[in-house]
């Protein structure tokens, strides 16, 4: 025998159609379920159109649309208002009608609900209680009765009515709980109205826009979205972005977090400062600034370098690339960045900075900084010992040359001869060890410049072919002086912060509506109007209960309650027997 776990469907609450009169017909129409469902379907259908057709399209999107669907379609949709659907009269009208519908049908149903809420029978007769769906009776002994009634009072949390006399007639204990659950539906309907009103307040009295602020700059103007697209709005204060920070996930260029340090300036005074990030906006005078996006300005970004002098002081300097600068300890310098200046923070592989130091004597010292390899500028060496060798590796002569000191090239069978001088020294050129540069001026020939590496004596022989004279560095005597090391620690990218700016005085109203809705849903689905009667007459106890919804859950509670009541008798008898 299958257990019947279903429940009866409820009686309709509406008062049904009234008789007579146009007003009544109109009232019925506006309060009808049919209207409600039709409105919901209409709102759904128009909303769907809004998801398929781009809303408030910018010029680019409009062009794209016309390209794909033709100008005729565009004009037709524009005339129908499809590009700004949610502000069209027919959409707003349907929302207004929904509100009316909710109010009318709620007013319609309310009296009946109230009646049922109040309609509590505290002392129904025996037959009534016995006929209920949940009803049980058992017997107790006379002397138990007083104790039993006290026990029942405790369990039900109600007291016997004043002056009730168990010997005179039946005594009732009546528990009436959860009546508020009958009104759940009104809370839900009210909440929808509140939410719609809140959204209207926001639309009428609020605005939404955005603005990009470059680091270090400020503004008081934002650009509006939506209906007033492109229109500027002047704020009653200024907002300045002092700093923008971007954190990426290690090894990638994916953003992990980005923050802006913002300051509000009103009447020349700084009134509020906050660092905002996504999901954590800044609020001032009803206007909220949300961290929405960011970008590189493409200009003003600086290279972050660490300048170290001979193992002593370290200074961090920020220098703009590709510009002639005066830098302490270096003099006239230009830092040439290898790639696109607007993307220095990127992770491309061709990523280096060429340092050009322009010396007073007209020469240029050059080195390259890679992210993992610093550039080193050492003082010129005191002297360099060079072996001049012939093509077969035999020593021609040994020269001890001072820095920038002109030396004679051997002539004779190594004609044409000429001059050479040591012009540059780098204690560690790109990890290959000490290197010197030599300017060679052959007699009557073209000058050229070569690099020699102390750790690779055969370098010149391998590098230049068919020469009469090859240079092999033997020793380099360093001089006292400062060695300057430049490492590349990062890029101080000049960002702009992308902010969304909104004012919506309707937001708290909407949240209030949501809370009311949750309350209404809870009352409607998870609680019910439960009545319990415990009637004692003589030695008979009759327990009955009713609920207006969800009998299954109620049933188990009811049975448990009866058990507890019965428990009293059993305990009493036990203590008696002892």
């Amino acid at each position, binding site marked *: 025998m*299958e257990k019947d*776990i*279903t*429940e009866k*469907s*409820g009686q*309709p*609450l*509406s008062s049904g159609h009234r008789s007579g009169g146009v007003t009544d017909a109109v009232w019925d129409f506006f309060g009808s*379920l049919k209207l*409600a*469902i039709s409105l*919901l*379907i209409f*709102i*759904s259908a128009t*909303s*769907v159109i*809004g*998801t*398929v057709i781009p*809303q408030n399209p910018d010029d680019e999107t409009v062009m794209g649309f016309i390209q794909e669907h033709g100008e005729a379609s565009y004009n037709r949709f524009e005339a129908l208002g499809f590009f700004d*659907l*949610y502000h069209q009269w027919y959409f707003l009208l349907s929302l207004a009608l929904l509100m009316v519908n909710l109010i009318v049908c709620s007013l319609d149903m309310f009296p009946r609900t109230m009646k049922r809420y109040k309609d509590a029978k505290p002392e129904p007769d025996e037959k009534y209680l016995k006929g209920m769906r949940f009803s049980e009776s058992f017997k107790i002994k006379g002397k138990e009765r007083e104790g039993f009634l006290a026990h029942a009072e405790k369990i039900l949390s109600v007291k016997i009515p004043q002056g009730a006399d168990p010997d005179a007639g039946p005594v009732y204990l009546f528990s009436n709980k959860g009546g508020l659950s009958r009104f759940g539906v009104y809370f839900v309907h009210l909440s929808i109205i509140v939410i719609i009103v809140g*959204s209207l307040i926001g639309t009428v009295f609020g605005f*939404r826009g955005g603005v990009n602020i470059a680091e270090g700059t400020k503004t008081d103007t934002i650009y509006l979205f939506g209906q007033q697209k492109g229109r500027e709005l002047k704020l009653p204060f200024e907002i300045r972005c002092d700093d923008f920070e971007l954190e990426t*996930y290690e*090894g*990638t*260029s*994916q*953003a*992990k*977090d*980005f923050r802006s340090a913002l300051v509000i300036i009103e009447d020349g005074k700084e009134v509020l400062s906050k660092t905002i*990030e*996504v*999901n*954590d*906006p800044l609020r001032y005078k009803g206007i*909220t600034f*949300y*961290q*929405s996006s960011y970008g590189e300005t493409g200009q003003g970004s600086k290279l972050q370098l660490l300048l170290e002098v001979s193992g002593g002081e370290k200074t961090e300097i920020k220098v703009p690339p590709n510009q002639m600068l005066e830098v302490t300890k270096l003099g006239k310098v230009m830092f040439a960045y290898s790639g696109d200046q607007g993307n220095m923070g990127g*992770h*491309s592989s061709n990523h280096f900075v060429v340092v050009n130091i322009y010396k007073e004597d007209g020469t240029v010292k050059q080195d390259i900084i890679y992210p993992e390899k610093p550039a080193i500028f050492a003082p010129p060496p005191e002297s360099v010992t060079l072996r001049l060798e012939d093509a077969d590796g035999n020593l021609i002569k040994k020269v001890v040359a001072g820095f920038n000191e002109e030396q004679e090239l051997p002539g004779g069978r190594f004609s044409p001869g000429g001059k050479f001088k040591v012009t540059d020294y780098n204690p560690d050129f790109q990890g290959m060890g000490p290197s010197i540069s030599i300017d060679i001026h052959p007699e009557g020939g073209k000058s050229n410049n070569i690099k020699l590496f102390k750790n690779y004596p055969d370098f010149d022989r391998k590098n230049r072919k068919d020469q009469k004279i090859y240079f092999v560095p033997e020793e380099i005597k360093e001089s006292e002086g400062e060695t300057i090391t430049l490492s590349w620690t990062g890029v101080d990218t000049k960002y702009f912060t992308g902010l*969304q*700016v*909104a004012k*919506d005085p309707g*937001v708290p109203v*909407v*949240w209030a509506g*949501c809370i009311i*809705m*949750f309350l209404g*849903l*809870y009352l409607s*689905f998870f609680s019910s109007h439960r009545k319990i009667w415990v009637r004692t007459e003589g030695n008979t106890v009759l327990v009955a209960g009713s609920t207006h919804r969800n009998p299954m859950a109620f049933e188990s509670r009811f049975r448990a309650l009866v058990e507890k009541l019965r428990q009293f008798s059993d305990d009493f008898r036990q203590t008696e027997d002892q």
Partner: protein
Amino acid sequence: MEETLLKLSGNLLNITGLAYLAATVLYLVYLAKRSDGLGLSATIISSIGVVLHTAALVMRWVSAGIDHPPFTNLYESLIFFGWGIVAFYLYMEWRYKIRLAGAFVFPIALAAMGIAAMTPDKGIGNLMPALQSNWLTFHVMFASIAYAAFVVAFAFSFMYLIKDKVQIRAMGIILSGITAATLAICDKASIITKGKFYMNVMGYGSDGKLYMAPVPDMQDQLQVVPVHMVGIFFLLAFILLTVSFVTYLASYIGSKPSLAETANLAMLAGLAVLTIGMIDIFIGISLNDRLYFASNPYKLILLGLEWLSLVAVAIINWKRESIIERLPERKTLDFLGYRSIIVAFPLMTIVIVTGAVWANSAWGTYWQWDPKETWSLITWFIYAIYLHARVMAGWSGRRVAIISIIGFVSVVFTYLGVNVFLSGLHSYA
């Protein structure tokens, strides 16, 4: 430590998948054969599965860090969704002792796990800043459970219609219409106008992750390719399914029952060709090493679900009599569908509201008529209509079962369809 946890989580998920597979088979056989032992073992195995599943989810969460919950990408959301379905179903089974529904609910849970298994990127991705919010946790958690409850409600409504002797055939025809429409709309009608089915090409970025082209540092910026001969099969399937749909309508309107038989045959033929097309997708993916399932997960999932539904309907139609006999009473099914929706509806409300709160703090507005937001509202409306039809108009039985199923179609569209056909703020999930 985190890596071992993640690995362990993955292993547990594999075992869970197997457990659910076994449970699905057991429930299906239980539907066919009268044997309490089968039903009980199905429940036991699925319970073990869900416990392992829960452990796996917790481990995954711990290994990713407390502020990176395990439902922020497609893979995770599918795993979590599968968990929700099984957990909610087992709760309903325990409370109301209806085991036969398992045969209808578990294939969907299994499909979710199976699709997840096909996703190549099972790693723990990096969270975008917009997703780093506690409201995210609540929003997605409630969404998965709400969707799970809607799935169970759908199962009961579906069972109701079968028991109510609704023409299964009619359901198949409607499915044919929907599938044909999906095939027609795909990629701006590329299937029906060019006979080509496109998928996005993917490539590995320098950080080792899969990206849709253009990938940073990638040489070849090809964006979409037609996949093998899939387009031609799908075109043929589209023709057959449309023929089936139209013929059935004609048989209904023109009262020519003989046409219904033709319509049915056309549908089965269309299903067969569709199956070949789907197999060809796998062939195409294996032939081109820059195509992955993850290239177009939503499109493939949607097509897969439609295919699965057609197959299910075809099987049920074949074994109709015995299934009808085994199903519980109609009023039980009707009631259980109602109970499921009573749970799902408030949860859906919470989903919409938490989403609005999150949107407000991230983007400055609680409602933007974004496709996902709009369709979730439409879903909410449909189930609101369901509740009003029951309580106010006293409807029950077949009519509300149909509303419940329409609601479920809306749920599927909200979860997947929006991602396939419309784009918006939700494009990262």
